[in-house]
């Protein structure tokens, strides 16, 4: 393979599939499903190729030459505009150790979600077309290195999500869909503002010797590129970088979701159909934290350093608050939704540590939360498909009737609790070890460890209420897993155990980049603040 634009392929393959599906007659439901499975399966294969040919020693983060699978060419260019000079947007894709795990995760989760959407019966064509569009949006966010492109993908994913919840959802689907849409859109608006602000603050040299404003994330990370008067330029003594940082952070925090912006999540999860919950928890939430690591951190290193304590604080609040809320839920799915809030808190905490161990843990936790929570939502889906109820107290003793199902449930639950030998343990430990070693947030870390305890509390309680105890005769007609359901659970189980026993497989991918990022975050703030007061 001399040069094969693999990232473009992996990103736009679903769109291709969508076009084909749109051309098929709507009655060909089986064909549409199989086609989607093939497309997402191909994505997994492509992700495997990426993993195979990935160079572990290249760092990426802020140096273009050490990104991998780069594709870069001019996408939009309008020159000769009076004071604007040249307006240009690059089609710039590339991955490093921060985005590679996310690409793998997206491919894997999309494939699993396709399998779990097999029994969608309402307007199959529309569902899978939107689903594939969503897939492209997600993949695009993780591979783009141009802010404009990033934003385009970010918004692209919003639209199908709205319809997927709003049409195929539960009883309160309209409410949930609109809430999700508006909430996320508010975040996007903040992001758009900051993006435009950054655009007018930094100039990049063009090959022809002139310079032009830029959306290139890597150029935005270099303080030398900033103009003297840009409103987000560190050279400008009256710059608004602090405000912009907070706006951008809120934009991402909504997606994570970070307390107090998290309430869209339980509603969206409860109403969304199972595959969409899987995607939502498995991939979408990671975009928030990914955005912070990819964009907020290296572009605003000095402010990140200042506000790291607050990020950790919110991480702690997420962990404990989410866990306590989960403890009080009576709806299976809602409980898992809140557990997501709690688990994403670990990511925030690890990120805030700004240490190699902590950041490795945070990114690893993003991946692991993706797989584990996907599994948890699939589990709820299995029982909901059969009984159309989700109350934790409506069941009991399911282990007697569905032993294989319970086997997978136990694995998923204990993985969520962070039991050693499963992937969640490694990432949570890394997060804690990393954040504990940072002086400023040591106390926060100690309080956060309560999350380990509370997590075990709500998970085991749910396990007991649904699966243990006396069998509730009402559910005598329940059947154990089908082959298709096996197919959903087994890959996730394998990944969970594999990464729990051999975490180096993932950590080696991340470590070089994370080291480079930590180094950057250690050295750059001085440079940024040397240029001018913030």
């Amino acid at each position: 393979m001399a040069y094969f634009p693999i990232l473009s392929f992996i990103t736009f393959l679903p769109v291709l599939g969508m076009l084909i599906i749109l051309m098929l007659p709507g009655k060909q439901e089986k064909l549409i499903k199989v086609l989607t499975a093939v497309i997402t399966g191909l994505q997994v294969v492509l992700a495997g190729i990426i993993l195979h040919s990935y160079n572990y020693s290249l760092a990426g983060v802020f140096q273009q030459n050490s990104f991998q699978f780069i594709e870069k060419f001019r996408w939009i260019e309008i020159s000769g505009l009076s004071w604007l000079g040249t307006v240009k947007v690059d089609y710039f894709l590339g991955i490093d150790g921060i985005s590679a795990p996310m690409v793998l995760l997206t491919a894997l989760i999309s494939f699993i979600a396709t399998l779990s959407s097999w029994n969608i019966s309402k307007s199959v064509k529309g569902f899978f077309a939107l689903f594939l569009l969503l897939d492209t949006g997600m993949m695009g966010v993780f591979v783009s290195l141009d802010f404009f492109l990033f934003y385009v993908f970010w918004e692209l994913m919003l639209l199908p999500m709205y319809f997927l919840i709003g049409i195929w959802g539960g009883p309160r689907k309209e409410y949930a869909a609109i809430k999700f849409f508006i909430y996320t859109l508010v975040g996007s608006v903040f992001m758009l503002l900051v993006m435009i602000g950054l655009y007018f603050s930094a100039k990049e040299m063009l090959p022809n010797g002139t310079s032009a404003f830029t959306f290139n994330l890597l150029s935005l990370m270099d303080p030398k590129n900033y103009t003297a008067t840009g409103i987000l330029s560190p050279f400008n003594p009256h710059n608004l970088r602090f405000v912009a940082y907070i706006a951008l952070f809120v934009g991402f925090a909504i997606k994570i979701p970070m307390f107090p912006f998290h309430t869209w999540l339980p509603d969206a999860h409860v109403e969304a159909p199972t595959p969409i919950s899987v995607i939502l928890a498995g991939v979408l939430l990671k975009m928030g934290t990914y955005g912070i690591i990819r964009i907020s951190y290296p572009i605003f290193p000095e402010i990140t350093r200042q506000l790291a304590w607050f990020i950790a604080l919110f991480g702690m609040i997420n962990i404990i608050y989410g866990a306590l809320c989960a403890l009080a839920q009576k709806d299976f799915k809602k409980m898992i939704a809140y557990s997501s809030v709690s688990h994403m808190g670990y990511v925030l905490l690890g990120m805030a540590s700004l240490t190699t161990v902590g950041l490795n843990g945070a990114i690893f936790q993003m991946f692991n939360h993706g797989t584990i929570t996907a599994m948890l939502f699939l589990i709820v889906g299995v029982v909901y498909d059969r009984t159309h109820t989700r109350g934790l107290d409506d069941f009991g003793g399911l282990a007697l009737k569905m032993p294989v199902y319970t086997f997978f449930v136990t694995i998923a639950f204990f993985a969520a609790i962070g039991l050693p030998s499963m992937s969640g343990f490694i990432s949570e430990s890394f997060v804690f070890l990393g954040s504990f070693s940072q002086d400023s947030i040591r106390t926060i870390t100690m309080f956060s460890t309560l999350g380990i305890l509370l997590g075990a509390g709500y998970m085991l309680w749910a396990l007991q209420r649904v699966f243990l105890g006396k069998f509730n005769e009402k559910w005598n007609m329940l059947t154990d897993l089908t082959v298709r359901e096996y197919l959903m659970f087994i890959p996730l189980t394998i990944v969970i155990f594999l990464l729990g026993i051999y975490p180096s497989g993932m950590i080696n991918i991340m470590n070089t980049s994370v080291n480079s990022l930590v180094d950057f975050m250690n050295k750059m703030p001085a440079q940024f603040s040397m240029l001018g007061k913030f």
Partner: protein
Amino acid sequence: MTEASLLNISLVILFLPLLGFAALIFLGKKIPGSHWLETFIMFSALCLSIYVGFGKLSYYVGKDLISQLTWISLPNVPLLGNINMDLGIKIDNLTAIMLFVVTLISFLVHLFSIEYMKGDSRYSRYYAYLGIFTFSMLGIVLTHNILMMYIFWELVGLSSYLLIGFWFEKKSASDASKKAFLVNRVGDTGMFIGIMILFTNYHTFTFDTIYAQIAAGHLPFNSPAWLTAAGILIFMGAVGKSAQFPLHVWLPDAMEGPTPVSALIHAATMVAAGVYLVARIFVMLTADAMLTIAIIGMVTSFIAATIALTQNDIKKVLAYSTVSQLGYMIMAMGVGAYQYAFFHLVTHAFFKACLFLGSGSVIHAMHHEQDIRKMGGLRKKLPITYATFLTATLAISGVPFTSGFLSKDGLLAGTYAFGLLTGHWIIPAVAFLVALMTAFYMFRLVIITFHGTPRDEHKYDHAHESPFVMALPLVVLATLSVFFWYGTNPMNPSSGWFLSKWVKTPATVVPQQQRFDFMKTEVKEAGAVEETKTAEAAETETVTHSEHYMHAMHQAHYPAMGLSIILGGLGILLAFAMYQWKKIDADKLAEKLGPLYRFSLNKWYIDELYGATFIGGTLALSRALAWFDSKVVDGIVNGTATLTRGLSNIGGLFDKYIVDGMVNGAAYLSGFIGLFFRRFQTGKVQTYVVFVVFSVIILLFIFRPFGF
């Protein structure tokens, strides 16, 4: 018998049970006689352990064998360089002994369960769980670093959870398993914080590396207080797993599990892992940490012993006695009697496993009756069980010529010496009191269960001695409760090979001023310590205790032994007086001591207290937060939405009536004007002409173009 072969065989021992687990969990019902397969696996592991133990203790007795590989490596970390997290095993004498103890008891329990669990619908699942437990327990024993210790620590927690809740159809069983896991998690959380302290400072998890750095004067955060904190926090893991106060509440409930499981996990091995952990971190414990540990052990042994006095469930009595004995070991670790604590761990493992399996035999014979008030006179029906149970009871009561006497006497002497040296006399005082109570409640149990006349004739008639596979483990374990396995002198434990050759107190690495006075290294011996560390480990004596301490220990030996024999005898006598000869009426006594009796019977109301405070508090808080979340946080969101909608409604109205009203108004106006002028629009040309003419005249008149 090279080092490498010993290490490799240890790895085989470690992974054999895991293999059994995997086979049974996936193929369980398809393998005929899966229980025999599993038992055979354990037997192989036992043989290999004996081989390893023999090799280690005879050829490498003074040398630690270590084998490790890098698990996770983080190269080029900014500011810190390379961080490596290793997987590794370390075989020292402790490990070699523990390997044998664990595999032996595990094997015997496997054997015992063949009959005990026969006919259970999840028979193969049961053996799978035993396999994963044995694997994790061996992991704890073998590991050479604290992270792996934590990993296996959690895994034994998992297997304990699975086995306690084995009969999960019963609510009490699933409650108990949940409780066990959660209470253990409390301790584990503390332990993890301790691990974080060590990792943050030393960037490694390996015990030896950490200790070497502490010995070199590198304290956590450069403060001895943090060293104490690290010690106590890691000890919290032991508090949870070894059921120490205030986290002891899970162990009695854990008796919901099958009885062989109670013998294996909740008496002999897993709960002793806490003591093993303290032994592993012993060298980094400061004086303050040790005192804390000693006090917690003391309180635990006392509380548990008082509760055991009044319980009527055969397994509950044994459970509290286990808690009490674990408290003993922890206390012994705390007072620096490292050797005796570990010695007691081993002897206790055997006789307590014997007691539990014996109780299992009784329960089996009585068709799952556990209330001792319905038993009695079983001596005749179950002679083997009775004989072995009695032997073990003698051992736990500290009667001479038993293993329990040796270890308990040494342990008590240790506390006595501690009292002599530091003036903390409360610790030996409580320890001796507990010895008295132990003898009393154990004999109470034996007398009520086996002596006297049967109270439930029906069940008594159907009782029968257990079959061979159940009797054999009892006999083996009872034999191991006799002194000669551990030394030739039944009166002096320290002369036996167990203590004089195999188990030695390691040299502490804590800075001098953080040690107890009696553990300080005298100046002239400071060189010796260095030497032992650098030179080929220790054929020579490692110096932890000063001469002073040795002297005190010597001094304490005979008084302690005398006292323990007297108190033990007194306890036994009292039990006979009350329950055998009925000289003292137990019920009347209970009535007289009313409140105290109920306090003990209800386990000091600790469960109720926790239920009301921690559990109730957490649940109330969670409900309050859930309310807050849905009403306030989400309320604000929805409120914002409503507000926006309200504003947009106002905007809509404004748009409709004012903005649009103006547009429509203009239209209306023009329409109105049109209507007015429409009247002039007759369609008759002549009318128009009239208008034109008049208009022209008017215009002419107005503008007067010709200057009229």
